[in-house]
């Protein structure tokens, strides 16, 4: 019983970066912009969070820095996609490459090492007052980092905003046909810019969870394709933020299983394939409604 509870709790912990990133991707996708730069946004977020914590000595300031930097970085992507009508896939890949290179160069410049940054302040675990004394719930609901509770809030809030508020209808309409939105006197480009920036900020929070909550430093390639997995998740979730969270937990489960099976005599490389294989499987079953809007260029 206890092992099962622990596995669930660990899955939830592992799912948080994916949860943030997939909600972020869904919001951007709603406005009609395929956020292929998620991987880059997460990398930038993970690194800038460490920088913030390093210079100010406080992990929460690191989180804020990550959110702000992520939003700004995504704004660049937005300008290219919205103002200059870039091919979104190509621009997204470009953003990912820039993020990786930028973080490498800054790592060398600031910490003098490519591999690992210095240790910084990390986010502490929060125990919820009453729940922490109830037997089963204390494992399931209490004892996560603050970012986990924030994710729950973000998921509910974004669900309410997207499906229950006028803003959400405008957002979804923009993705379906932005000219109609413009014709109604609303500024579809503004909606797109805002949603891309929200996407950048949220996925940066996902990245910062990796560097400031799971660890307390930035290590090279720590995002490891989670941005791309998140893309598959929100497709499978039909862009619904609540589903995004649940599917992310399933992915967290695969990562937990992968960690737990390291005791068995299976080569670690095969274990690390598990999340990617699961993504492939999920893609096979995913709805057929996900089409990347191709511009004729390229």
């Amino acid at each position, binding site marked *: 019983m206890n092992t099962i509870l622990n596995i669930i709790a660990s899955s939830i912990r592992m799912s948080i970066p994916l949860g943030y990133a997939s909600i972020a991707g869904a919001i951007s996708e709603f406005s009609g912009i395929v956020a292929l730069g998620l991987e880059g946004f997460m990398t930038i977020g993970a690194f800038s969070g460490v920088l913030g914590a390093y210079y100010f000595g406080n992990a929460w300031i690191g989180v804020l820095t990550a959110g702000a930097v992520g939003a700004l970085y995504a704004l660049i992507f937005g300008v290219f996609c919205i103002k200059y009508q870039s091919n979104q896939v*190509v621009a997204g*890949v470009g953003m990912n490459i820039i993020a990786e*290179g930028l973080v490498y*160069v*800054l790592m060398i410049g600031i910490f003098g090492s490519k591999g690992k940054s210095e240790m910084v302040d990390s986010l502490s675990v929060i125990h919820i007052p009453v729940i922490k004394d109830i037997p089963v719930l204390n494992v399931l609901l209490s004892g996560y980092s603050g970012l986990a509770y924030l994710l729950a809030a973000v998921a509910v809030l974004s669900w309410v905003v997207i499906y229950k508020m006028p803003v959400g209808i405008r957002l979804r309409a923009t993705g379906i046909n932005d000219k109609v939105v413009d014709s109604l006197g609303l500024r579809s480009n503004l909606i797109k810019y805002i949603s891309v920036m929200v996407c950048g900020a949220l996925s940066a929070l996902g990245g910062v969870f990796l560097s400031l909550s799971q660890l307390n430093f930035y290590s090279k390639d720590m995002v490891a394709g989670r941005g791309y997995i998140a*893309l598959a998740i929100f497709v499978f979730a039909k862009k619904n933020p609540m589903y995004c969270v649940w599917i992310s937990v399933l992915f967290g489960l695969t990562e937990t299983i992968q960690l737990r099976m390291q005791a068995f005599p299976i080569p670690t490389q095969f274990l690390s394939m598990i999340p990617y294989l699961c993504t492939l499987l999920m*893609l096979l079953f*995913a709805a057929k409604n996900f089409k990347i809007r191709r511009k004729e260029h*390229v």
Partner: protein
Amino acid sequence: MRIKRTLGKLSIPLLSILIAMLAGSAVILVCGYSPGAAYSSLLRGAFGSFRSCMGTFEKCVPLIFCGLAAMAAFKSGIFNIGLEGQVVVGAIAYILTGLKIQFLPLPLHVLVCSIFAMLAGGLWAMIAGAMKVYCRANEVVSTIMLNYIALNLAEYLFSGPFMAEGTIPQSEALETSKLLLPVWEGSKITWAFVIACSMILFMGIFYRYTVTGYNMIAAGDNYKAAEAGGIRMNQTRLLSMAMSGGIAGIAGGLLVAATYGRYVIGMSSGYGFDGMAIAVLGQNSAAGVFLSSILFGGLRTGSLSMAMFEGIPSELVSILQGLIILTVSAPLLIKSFRIKSRGKKQ
């Protein structure tokens, strides 16, 4: 007229390189280096002397193949972002068959191994292709996932069952492979470079003069029109994906045969995305791929000398590459520049 058209085609890539360099110098300044010194040492390291030119030509062989591979997918409207995985699988196939059949004479050995590399890369890409065609699974995500799986597979193979003696995770060295000889004494232009150039020619001819090539381009330009015109979409897409993967597989094989002489873990890093960048920068034409592979090969060699002489981290180049991709992807950005400059003249 013809010259004008060519110039018009060149202007987008050239302007975007210029813009990327301007933006790149801002990054260099922020990082506390001098852009002038960085660019001049980059240029000198890439094309400054006979030796560095040779190095550039050596480096651009796998890049040419990766660029062509990306182009093959782009042409029919598929984003094959998983080139790196196909390169890795091709390299694995090359080294494993190569080690098994060392008794064959050199040309035959290279040929057989390359065929296996091509098949492996092609089949690996076909997984994503089949998923796209039959299940409408988005190829961008699936190819990336296949990348990670291939990388893990290689890591398992060459740090496990096929690891060479010693502590470095790599395969046994291939006896015959290093013998991919230079064309003439003292140059680094190997036969691999010649093969790459003939591949460029082949692809150019393939897309211009064959029906299959025409079908692929039609499928990419307007798939509805192509379908209405009787082109079988599924077949065409699968074929171009297989072609793309096959060429990437050869790139992996050549990486083993001509550059490293064995499989070294991590040797493939960046080739996939570079290939994509090259195809985009080369405006999806065979000649463009050739020119931009030389540029990217130059960036690779130049970055090393930049790191050595100026102490500027070589990863700066990947920022530059990313910026180039970003600006090339935005034709309107370039157009807005051109319109502005025209307005000033009048």
